[in-house]
């Protein structure tokens, strides 16, 4: 009933394409986050769904109706804005009832609904206040109440928590999830904060440069990123990337090599330039990786900077000692690797050590196109491996083994 479907949505301004051939189907009752760096087109996409912006091409469906040409007020959507956007000249009751009063609901019905909405967001007894007499969190609740009071088919939320302080933001996250459970309405949520997207949504739509990169449940985006952009964007700290050449024995990078049968990498032939991706938590000190069976050969490294976070320690590793230690963009330079270890690990700065990678968590990407080729690579090259080559299958395996090793660190 309140499915939202975007078909070939494109929005061009004079010289920029803000949204480029976007095709998304959001199911009824689903909580979907549109996530991406600022300026990627996620807000424009939401404005197109709301009707605040008309797409240059393409069609928007809400439910079964083509709403591309409908003004926002007739689309059955409600929206919560980044800057909260309460009407400063109206009190809370007037703000919440604004849409109902415009639609000429009778007074009893308005009162009943406002009461109910205020109840849901815990605003009882504040209906007479003016927005400037309220705290940020309370104002945000009013904005949400204003959205839910109309029983919209679709909720649109444009970075609604961006202007709140960190503590309140975390609290509001859970509130929103509770709200979603309670209302069971389709929610489209725009954010640039991947952690917000990971924790709240049923599915994440990762957008970059106006294009949809991937739309999948959070863990799939995390474990099987569709391309280099998603891999780098989802997860904090970011995934390590190392460029290398595909050889007959595996992948050869400037500082180390990973052995595997190249035939298990689809759409790639020996000699291709590939990028290896490995998350910090999938890099292990050799002597602490005992239980892990799917390790690579040890890699020589020197610890550089340690960042103890409390629940884990981030270790910056230099793979090539002779290379200059560069501060800027450490993750991109191929001679550096970020590793996450448990806080009880004995480790010091400027220490020579050996690390291994969890082979089942290695991602390979085509360097030129950025597309993911395979998630998790099988053991040493040999007759046993290489039977199934599909990226998806390999990924499924990854997840199965992944859960076992997590606690090991």
């Amino acid at each position, binding site marked *: 009933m309140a499915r939202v479907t975007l078909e070939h949505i494109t929005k061009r301004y004079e010289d920029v394409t803000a949204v480029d051939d976007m095709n998304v189907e959001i199911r009824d009752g689903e909580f979907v986050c549109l996530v991406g760096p600022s300026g990627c087109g996620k807000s424009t996409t939401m404005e197109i769904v709301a009707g605040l912006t008309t797409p240059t091409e393409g069609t928007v469906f809400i*439910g079964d109706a*083509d709403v591309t*040409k409908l*003004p926002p007020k007739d689309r059955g959507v409600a929206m919560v804005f980044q800057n909260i956007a309460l009407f400063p000249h109206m009190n809370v009751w007037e703000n919440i009832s604004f849409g109902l009063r415009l639609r000429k609901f009778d007074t009893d019905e308005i009162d009943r609904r406002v009461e109910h909405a205020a109840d849901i967001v815990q605003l009882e007894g504040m209906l007479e206040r003016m927005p400037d007499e309220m705290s940020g969190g309370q104002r945000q609740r009013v904005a949400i109440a204003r959205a839910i009071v109309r029983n919209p088919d679709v909720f649109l939320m444009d970075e609604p928590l961006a202007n709140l302080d960190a503590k309140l933001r975390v609290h509001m996250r859970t509130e929103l999830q509770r709200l979603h459970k309670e209302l069971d309405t389709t929610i489209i949520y725009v954010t640039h904060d991947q952690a917000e997207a990971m924790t709240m949504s049923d599915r994440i739509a990762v957008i970059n440069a106006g294009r949809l990169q991937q739309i999948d449940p959070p863990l799939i985006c995390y474990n099987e990123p569709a391309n280099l952009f998603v891999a780098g964007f989802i997860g904090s700290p970011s995934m390590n990337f190392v460029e290398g050449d595909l050889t007959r024995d595996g992948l050869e990078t400037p500082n180390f090599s990973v052995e595997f049968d190249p035939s298990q990498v689809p759409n790639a032939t020996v000699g291709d330039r590939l990028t290896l991706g490995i998350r910090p938590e999938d890099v292990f000190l050799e002597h602490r990786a005992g239980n892990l069976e799917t390790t690579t050969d040890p890699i020589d490294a020197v610890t550089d900077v340690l960042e103890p976070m409390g629940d884990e320690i981030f270790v910056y590793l230099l793979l090539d000692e002779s290379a200059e230690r560069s501060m800027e963009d450490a993750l991109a330079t191929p001679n550096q690797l970020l590793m996450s270890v448990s806080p009880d690990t004995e480790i010091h700065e400027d220490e020579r050590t050996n690390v291994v990678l969890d082979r089942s968590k290695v991602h390979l990407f085509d360097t030129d196109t950025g597309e993911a080729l395979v998630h998790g690579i099988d053991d040493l090259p040999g007759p046993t491996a290489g039977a199934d080559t599909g990226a998806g299958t390999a990924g499924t395996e990854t997840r199965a083994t992944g859960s076992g090793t997590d606690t090991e660190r």
Partner: protein
Amino acid sequence: MAAETDESGPTRETRRSGPLVAITRWMENLGETGFAYLLLTPVFVLLGAIALYPLLRTLELSLYTNIIGVGEPEFVGLDHYVSLFTGASDPWLPGTSAFLWGDVTLSSTFPFIHVEGLLRSALAVTLIFTLVSVFFETIIGFGQALVLDQEFRGRSWVRVAIIIPWAIPIVIQGMIFYLMFHPSTGFATEYLGAWGIVAETNTLNDPFSSLLIVTVADIWKTSAFMALLILAGLQSIDRSLYDVARVAGASRWQQFKLITFPLILPTLGVAILFRTIDAMRVYGLIDSVSSCTVVPSLSCMVVATFGSQRGLASAIAFVTAIIIGIAVLGVIYQQYKEGI
């Protein structure tokens, strides 16, 4: 459209129809440019009808001779302009020869430099009035602005007192000065006449005295406007600059010369331009204090002739528009530089 397919959502209004809904829907779907021009339509219509059309029509009328009550309009080309500049149309024009001093005759064949006759007196009156009034308004306005820029008790009342002349109707402004210098009532004539500043008798029919009185009346009323514009400029100056200057040992006069004046200069420039354009349109003040025959400004000449020789009046109107238009270009250039 979507109206048929949509059956859901109690809050939707898609099923409403009717011409009003159709028009609203059409407007909502207009692109930004289309919507902008749609909303500007009333502005275009109003300004087109009341400003653009009359301006063009004035130009057209100025090419015809049209003496009210005498025959049909007749095409005469640029004759009116030529006769204006050679003095041939003087019989139609109000005014005295009082402002005709000097000899501008450069060439008897090229009429646009050869400004003869009463048009020259109108140019002279308008120019003198504009230059003198704007000059004094700027100085007095600056003084008033400096006073209002200070913090003192009762400031808002002083501000009201200084603004009030700006807000009073031109006809009352004229009336005040009319009564001041009227032979039966005026106390001022006696004094100023004795000092030889204005004519001792029949002051308001003496061209020079009247021009002086009109100019003073304008300075009295419009200095406040200058003061407000300059005050806005003064208050936008960062106060900490003065602290810096004081620490550096600058005296008050040096602070004014080195900080206030340079920073206020752009504002002053814009304000002077605006006032100049405004002053060149003077009519009502002259009409209510004295009369257009005594002190003929450009606008005066239009009003005085349009009841009799409409073609000639149009020519004067167009000449006036061109002269002011040149000043307007100055403003536009200024605005363009600042970037609208």
